C-alpha cells in the first residue's frame, strides 16, 4: 500500500526555518551542498554536521522524520560505502579471498557515506520546511534574470507548481484504484515478469485516464479565469528578504567560505 506521506513532503509549521524566504533557503541549500562536497578533513565534516544538525533543531521537525528519509535510501548508502571500502587500493586491514578492505577504502567509504547523508539532510531541510508553492515562487524569482535570455521562467515555475500539486492527488488516486482492482482479485506485482507488467495495466490505464481528465478540467478552469502565463502577473504574497534572511545567508556563506578556503589550504 502506498504510504500517504511522501518522502520529504512539506510539514507545515511556524519555526524560524519555515518563515525564511524561500530564496534564502534555496541559496543556502546550494551553498551548504557545495561546502559538503568540497570538504575532506574529519573535523570539517564535524563542523558541517553540527551546522546541519543545528538547522534541523531550528526547523522544529522531529528528528525521526529526517532519519526515516535517510533510511529509505539505505541501499544507495550501503552500496556506495561498500564499493569505496572494497575497491580502494592501499593498506589491507582484512581480506576474504579477492575481497580486501583497505584502511584508505574504509576512510573513503565513510566520507562518501557522510557526504551523501548530509546532502540528503540538507535537501530535506528545504523540502520539509517549504511549501511547494513558495518553493516554486522562490525558484521563479531566482531564475528571473534568465527571462531576458528568453527562458520562460514563469511558465516553468507554473508547470512545477502544477506537477507538485498533483503528486498527492495522483497518489491518492493510485491507492484507490489499487484497492478497487484488488477487490476484483487483481494480483498487482506478483508472478512472472510478463504477468507483472500485464498486472499493472488495471492500475495504469485508469490512472492515465484520470490524469488526462484532470488536466483537461484544470485547463478549462484556468481559461475560464482568463489565465495568461507570465503577462506581468503579480503575487498575492510577494517575497521580501528580512533580517533573519540576511543573517542566515551571512552564516551560510561564512560556512561555505570557510570550507572552500580550507580546501585550498589543504591543496597547497
Amino acid at each position: 500500500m502506498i504510504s500517504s506521506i511522501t518522502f520529504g513532503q512539506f510539514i507545515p509549521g511556524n519555526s524560524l526555518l519555515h518563515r525564511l524566504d524561500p530564496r534564502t533557503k534555496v541559496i543556502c541549500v546550494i551553498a551548504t551542498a557545495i561546502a559538503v562536497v568540497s570538504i575532506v578533513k574529519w573535523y570539517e565534516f564535524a563542523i558541517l554536521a553540527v551546522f546541519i544538525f543545528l538547522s534541523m533543531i531550528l526547523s522544529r521537525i522531529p528528528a525521526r522524520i529526517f532519519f526515516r528519509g535517510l533510511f529509505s535510501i539505505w541501499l544507495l548508502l550501503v552500496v556506495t560505502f561498500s564499493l569505496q571500502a572494497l575497491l580502494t587500493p592501499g593498506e589491507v586491514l582484512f581480506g576474504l579471498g579477492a575481497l580486501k578492505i583497505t584502511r584508505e577504502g574504509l576512510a573513503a567509504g565513510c566520507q562518501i557515506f557522510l557526504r551523501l547523508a548530509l546532502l540528503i539532510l540538507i535537501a530535506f531541510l528545504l523540502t520539509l520546511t517549504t511549501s511547494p508553492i513558495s518553493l516554486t515562487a522562490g525558484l521563479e524569482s531566482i531564475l528571473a534574470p534568465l527571462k531576458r535570455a528568453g527562458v520562460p521562467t514563469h511558465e516553468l515555475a507554473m508547470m512545477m507548481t502544477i506537477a507538485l500539486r498533483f503528486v498527492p492527488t495522483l497518489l491518492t488516486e493510485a491507492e484507490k484504484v489499487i484497492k478497487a482492482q484488488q477487490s476484483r482479485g487483481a494480483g498487482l506485482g506478483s508472478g512472472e515478469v510478463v504477468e507483472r507488467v500485464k498486472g499493472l495495466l488495471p492500475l495504469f490505464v485508469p490512472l492515465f485516464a484520470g490524469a488526462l481528465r484532470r488536466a483537461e478540467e484544470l485547463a478549462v478552469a484556468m481559461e475560464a479565469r482568463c489565465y495568461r502565463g507570465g503577462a506581468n502577473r503579480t503575487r498575492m504574497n510577494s517575497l521580501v528578504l528580512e533580517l533573519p534572511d540576511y543573517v542566515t545567508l551571512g552564516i551560510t556563506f561564512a560556512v561555505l567560505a570557510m570550507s572552500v578556503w580550507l580546501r585550498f589550504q589543504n591543496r597547497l
Partner: protein
Amino acid sequence: MPVIRVENLTHIYSRGTPFEVTSLDNVSLEIQRGGFYALVGATGSGKSTLVQHFNGILAPTTGKVWVCGIDVANKRLRRELWRKVGLVFQQPEHQLFEETVFDDVAFGPRNLGLSAKEVRERVFDALRLVGLDPDEVEQTSPFRLSGGMRRKAAIAGVLALHPEVLALDEPAAGLDPLSRRQLMERIDHFRMDRGITVVLVTHNMEEVARWADRVAVLHKGRLAMEAAPREIFNKAEELRAMGLDVPATVELMLCLQARGVPVRTSVLTTDEAVEEIAGLLNRT
C-alpha cells in the same frame, strides 16, 4: 446470524507520523445475513474506512472484524476475502481499464479462475442486472459510454463476482433521479433474489428510509446510533447536529406536528405519508 461482526474497531491512518488521523474509534456492530444495512454519516465520519475492512483491504489498528467467519487480522485469509465480499468504491467508473466492457466486467470472474463459458454467463448476467443490454455494449470501449452507463458497467464488474456480501460506497451519487431509483431497485432485487447481504454507504436519507432495514450512524469515527430506520429518524435533532437530516416525509410530519396536527412522525415512504394524512383527513 451475523455475517459481519465488528468489535471495538479502531483504525488510525499514518500512525506515528504528524499526519496521524483516527478514522474509526472503538466501533462495534453486527450485520445480519440477508439484510439491507445502511451506514450513514457526514463526510469524514469514517464510513468508507469501515467498509474497506469488510473485504480485507484495510486491517484493524486495534479491535476485531469477522467477515463470513474470517478474522480479517489474518493477512492470508484477508487477501481471499474479495471472493466473498464485493466492494463497489465511490465513482467506480474511474476504475475501468479494459478495451471492451465485456473484458472489464470479466476481469473479476477471470481472476476467480472460471471457465470461458462461465465467465461469459456471469458477464451477461451482471450486465443485465444493472440494466445494460449485453449485446449492445459488450464490444464497446467503456470510455465511450456515458457517465451513468460507465457507472453501471463498473458495478456489473463487482456483481459478476457473485459476492455473499455486496458493499456499495455511495453507488448512486451523481446519477439522475431515475437512474438512482432504478439502481437501488436492482440492488435490492439482487439481494432478495440471491439471498446476499447488502451494505450501503450513503448520506441520502431517502434511500435509507426506502431500502434499509438497519442503520448505523457514524459521527467523527464513533458509532452514534444503531437501530431500525424508524427509530433513527425519531431523533431528528440529533441527526441534524451530526450534519445529517431526516427524509422529506419525516420532515413534513414534524412540521405538521409543530403546528399542532396530531400525526405520527415515523413514516418512511411517500405512500405511508399519504396514508397518514388521508387517515387524518377522514377522521376530521
